[in-house]
Every structure is written in structure tokens, then in C-alpha cells.
């Protein structure tokens, strides 16, 4: 793996909870992202999984600097975004782009496809105005849309086609990294497969790094080189995709993998499923110690006091569990 293009060090994103209409009292903190360290190599696809509320979308927004970082650093190719000025951050944005979950909400309904795709080119002065139509046409073909649809509006396209437009918009500035937040969750299976193939192809062809966020582990395993599993603002397991999903080490990852229904009636009826009790706890008052201990089938007393660090093991795997190796 080459040198990392993106490096996160102990990133924290906390949101204050204020109450009262006039005297806004500070009554608590939502620790959406709480000490995440990660690196992404050039051309690498990193899958980020976790249940709703675990902070995966907030982490994506933190990387993009769409929400301010509370602590820690986000470094893209040696440029520190957390301390950078607005102008510096704006320049760096050329190199990182985002694709959102809902293609019905993330495109401006009043702009034609051409306007949507031409806007980033104009804002960043990438090419002379005369060349813009040709570039937009190329972009559309790159994501599998015919250039003759340039003057159409988003409502004239299906969900899968809109997601292609959103991907083309992200590619317009030839970024080095794309953060895709649940890009296929809103799509039907047959369309989902098309978009996954497109993203894989683009990453290969353009040597593009991709942070792929999803809650569907089979999708993540398919597209990712490495997978990070998040629980309540922290990464609990990190490693090569096949390893993590076929041989999960952290008790949470094990439960998550075992909870996925498989499309095979023979194995599905006989296999042992780990059904976790309860719901994920609130990130406002996370449990002390390991945040997973109230639901963990292997929890001991020591799990209730100390927060387990993410410890690197063999084969590029890291696990945040004090009982790692014994269970």
C-alpha cells in the first residue's frame, strides 16, 4: 500500500445539547465521533459500517469539514484541514468530494444536469467556458449516461440514474478521494448492483480512494479493500474486508455479521444466530468502559471500567476489545 492520502488522528466531533429558549444552558454533549484514527491509501476503498446513530455519517461530514472538528486532526496529503483557513479548506475540497444517500434530495431540482455538472467546473475555474460542454459530456459518459440527456432535469431520471449524476458531479473536479454516504441504500437490488459496479470501476480507472459508508455488510464486503466497524462513535474493529467479515473478532462485529439474513434457506434455518439484547445505547450518556458491554455476551467486570483501545494485531487487523484473543 502506498503512502496514505488521508490521515485521521484521534478525531472527535461532539455536539452540544442546549436547552431553554433565551438562556441556552448547556446540558450535555452528543459524542457522535469520539476518538477515531484512520488512514486511507491512494486508490483504496475503505468500507465504514455500523448501525444508525453510530456516528458514521458524522465522521464522513467531519472528513469533508462540513461540521467542525472538536479535537484531533484530519490531514489530506499533508495539508491539515482542521487548522486550515477557510480558503485553504476550500482549495482542498477540490480533491475530496461527497456522494449522498438520497439522490432525490441531493440534486437541485431546478438545475439541468448540465448546470449541475458545470457548476463545480466554473467555481474552480478548471477550464475555459467554451470547453465546459465537452467536459460535461465526457463526465456523463464516464458514469454511463448518454450526453444527449444534458438538458434534462433530475425529475426526468430514475433513482439509479440520479445517483449516477451525483457521482458525475463528485468526479467533475477529478478528486483524489470520494466519501460516499450510503450511496446505494435508497436503491433497489438490481439498480444497486449497477452503481456498485460503476464505483468499483471508477476507483480502478482513476486510482481514486473511496470511503464507502453503508449498513449492509454484504455490499461493503463486495466493494471494499478494508473495513472499519463503528459502534457509538468509536472504531471497534478494522482490517481487510474479507477477514473482518468472514472471521470477525470483536463481539459486536460477530453479532452484526450473524444478524444478516443470508439468501440461502438451508443454512439460514440451521445456523446459530447471535441475537443482541436491547438497542444501541444513546451517544449522550454512553455506558462507561467499553460502550458495547451492556449488550455483549462476553462482558466481564473489567469491561465496565476501562475503555479498550484499538489494538493492532496480525494481518493488518485491529480490534478494540480487552478480551481479544481469549474469546
Amino acid at each position: 500500500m502506498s503512502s496514505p492520502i488521508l490521515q485521521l488522528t484521534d478525531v472527535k466531533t461532539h455536539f452540544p445539547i442546549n436547552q431553554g429558549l433565551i438562556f441556552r444552558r448547556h446540558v450535555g454533549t452528543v459524542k457522535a465521533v469520539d476518538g477515531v484514527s484512520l488512514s486511507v491509501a491512494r486508490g483504496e476503498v475503505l468500507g465504514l459500517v455500523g448501525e444508525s446513530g453510530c456516528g458514521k455519517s458524522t465522521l464522513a461530514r467531519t472528513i469533508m469539514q462540513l461540521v467542525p472538528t472538536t479535537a484531533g486532526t484530519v490531514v489530506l496529503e499533508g495539508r491539515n484541514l482542521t487548522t486550515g483557513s477557510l480558503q485553504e479548506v476550500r482549495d482542498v475540497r477540490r480533491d475530496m468530494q461527497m456522494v449522498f444517500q438520497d439522490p432525490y434530495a441531493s440534486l437541485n431540482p431546478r438545475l439541468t444536469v448540465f448546470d449541475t455538472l458545470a457548476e463545480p467546473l466554473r467555481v474552480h475555474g478548471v477550464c475555459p467556458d467554451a470547453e465546459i460542454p465537452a467536459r460535461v459530456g465526457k463526465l456523463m459518459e464516464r458514469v454511463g449516461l448518454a450526453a444527449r440527456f444534458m438538458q434534462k432535469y433530475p425529475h426526468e431520471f430514475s433513482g439509479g440514474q440520479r445517483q449516477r449524476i451525483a457521482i458525475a458531479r463528485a468526479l467533475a473536479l477529478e478528486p483524489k478521494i470520494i466519501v460516499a454516504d450510503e450511496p446505494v441504500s435508497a436503491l433497489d437490488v438490481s439498480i444497486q448492483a449497477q452503481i456498485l459496479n460503476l464505483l468499483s470501476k471508477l476507483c480502478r480507472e482513476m486510482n481514486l480512494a473511496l470511503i464507502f459508508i453503508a449498513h449492509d455488510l454484504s455490499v461493503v464486503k463486495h466493494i471494499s479493500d478494508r473495513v472499519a466497524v463503528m459502534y457509538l462513535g468509536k472504531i471497534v474493529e478494522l482490517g481487510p474486508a474479507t477477514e473482518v467479515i468472514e472471521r470477525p473478532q470483536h463481539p459486536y462485529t460477530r453479532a452484526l455479521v450473524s444478524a444478516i439474513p443470508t439468501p440461502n434457506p438451508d443454512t439460514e434455518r440451521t445456523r446459530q444466530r447471535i441475537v443482541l439484547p436491547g438497542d444501541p445505547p444513546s451517544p449522550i450518556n454512553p455506558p462507561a468502559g467499553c460502550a458495547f458491554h451492556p449488550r455483549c455476551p462476553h462482558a466481564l467486570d473489567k469491561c465496565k471500567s476501562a475503555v479498550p483501545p484499538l489494538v493492532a494485531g496480525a494481518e493488518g487487523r485491529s480490534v478494540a476489545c480487552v478480551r481479544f484473543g481469549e474469546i
Partner: protein
Amino acid sequence: MPLLSVSDLRTYFYTRNGVYRAVDGVSFDLERGETLGIVGESGSGKSVTCYSIMGLIPQPPGRIESGTAVFDGVDLLHCTPAQARSIRGKRVAMIFQDPMTSLNPYLRISDQLIEPLLIHEKISKADALRRGLAMLEAVGINDAARRINLYPHEFSGGMRQRVMIAMALITKPELLIADEPTTALDVTVQAQILELIKKMQQEIGMAVIFITHDLGVVSGLCDRVQVMYAGRIVETADTRTLFHQPKHPYTRALQRSIPALQAKGSELYTIRGLPPDLSKPLPGCAFAARCEFAVDRCRTGNVGLAPAAPGHAHACLRVQAGEI
């Protein structure tokens, strides 16, 4: 005699942009105690089929053009409103996809939970509350005695879906229709809810129609599966046969386009093209435009479900002719 027998159901929607044939000639039987999965992508008509049976289609714009849905001798589509009321909510119950919006935010859990009992049975409020509490405990809500007095917003998504299930099952229905009940939930919570539905089904002995787009959910839960495409049933078989010997090209394509957890393939199989526009007439097979095996007669011929083996039927002319 089957518990529910639907035949030639057609539900159309009349909009400014034309007539949408959401359900276009659906027939199936459901035995007592059986679990039937209805699988399809969005717009395939799986929900509209069940909404039609339950009488939940807004009319207008919707209209049930033809068909019958005979539940234990009573045609739900052509009976008197009083007859329908005595069955709906008591002998046939339904749970919905989104537990966030299907509970009334203004009413305490207790009031919503016992409402079906108060309507359908001669029971005092105190007795109804006792049964409601027992039901909440049966669906696995901890501390039910206190929580029964709370409002829906004080419950998490998984707990609300448990309340919905308790509410549907409180009258001990003979048929439960579940419309994507776990789609809005996280996988670990989904596993809990699926276990709960299985457990309650064994206790009450009811039949279940389970609507989903997730073939994985179907494989562990259902006895029989029917696959819908563009308002029609394209294949129906018992679960094992459907997964191991799918016949219809659409069923096969659907299975091949799921990224499997066990194997990390290179390129995913994709179904070319888009689902058809239901406001245009679709002569022949609705899947023909996207099917890699389609020939001319697929686009014009009369395509109906034909049995391939006992309990296994599909609507593909070329498979029926033994060509593929």
C-alpha cells in the same frame, strides 16, 4: 379450503399522467398457518396487493378493477362494510414498514394497544389493559407495566415495531400481513423482530404474508415465496425450490445481483434497463424488455403462470417450452 384465496386481483390508479396498473391480475392461495413471502422491487405491486385485501387503497385515485379475495368464505372485496369490519383488525391484522409513523403520537401506548380489543370484543377496560400488558411482555418489552403508559416518542424504533406487533396480535388473528416490517430497522434489531414474529406465529398458529425486497429475510422465515414484477406474479414456489431451482429469468437475475456475503466476486451481475412504466400497456411478458432470453413471442404472447412442478409455477414462455 385455503384460509385466503385471491384471484385475478387488479388494482389500478387513475392519475393525471395516465392509468397505473399497480396490480395486474394476481392470484394466490394461502393455507392456515402458512408463511408466504412476497418479494419484489419497489413498484412491483407487492404492497398494493395487500393494501387491496385490507381495503386500504385510497379511492380515488385507486380502484379495484376486478378480482376476489375470499377469506374463510367471505369475499373481502365485495362484502358489506360491517362484514369487513368484523374481519379486519380482528381476524386479519397488518403491520407496516415504518414504526415511526404508524403509531399515533398523541395517544399513550396503552390506549392504542387495547383499541382493537375494545372494538372487537365485549371486554371491560380493566381486562383489556391486563391483556395488553401481557401482550407487551410477550413481545419482549422490558418493564412493560411502566412503559405501557408512555407515548410512542419515548420508544426506540425496535420497541415501536414490537408495540405494532403486539397491537396486531392482541386479537389473536388468523392472518398477519407484514409489509416490510424490518426495512427501517438496523440489522441487529431486525434479527430480534424476525425471531419475535416466528415465536408469535408458533404460539398463535396464524398464517403470515411477509412482504419484503430482501431475499435473505425470506429464506429464513417463509414456507413459500412468490416473486412479483410490474404488478404480476412471475414465479411462486416453496422457499427451498425457489432459491435452489429458480426458473424465471427475473428470479434468477434478482438472486445473481445480490452481493453474496460468502464470496467476493469481481463484477456484480446487473439487470439491464429499468423497471417498466406501469402507465403504458405491457403486452406479453413485462420483463421481456430487460430479459436476456427474450424473443419476439415474449413481447406479444399471452404469458400466464403455468405449473412447472407441484407447488412451483412460473410465467416464462421459454422456460415452459423447455428452451432455456
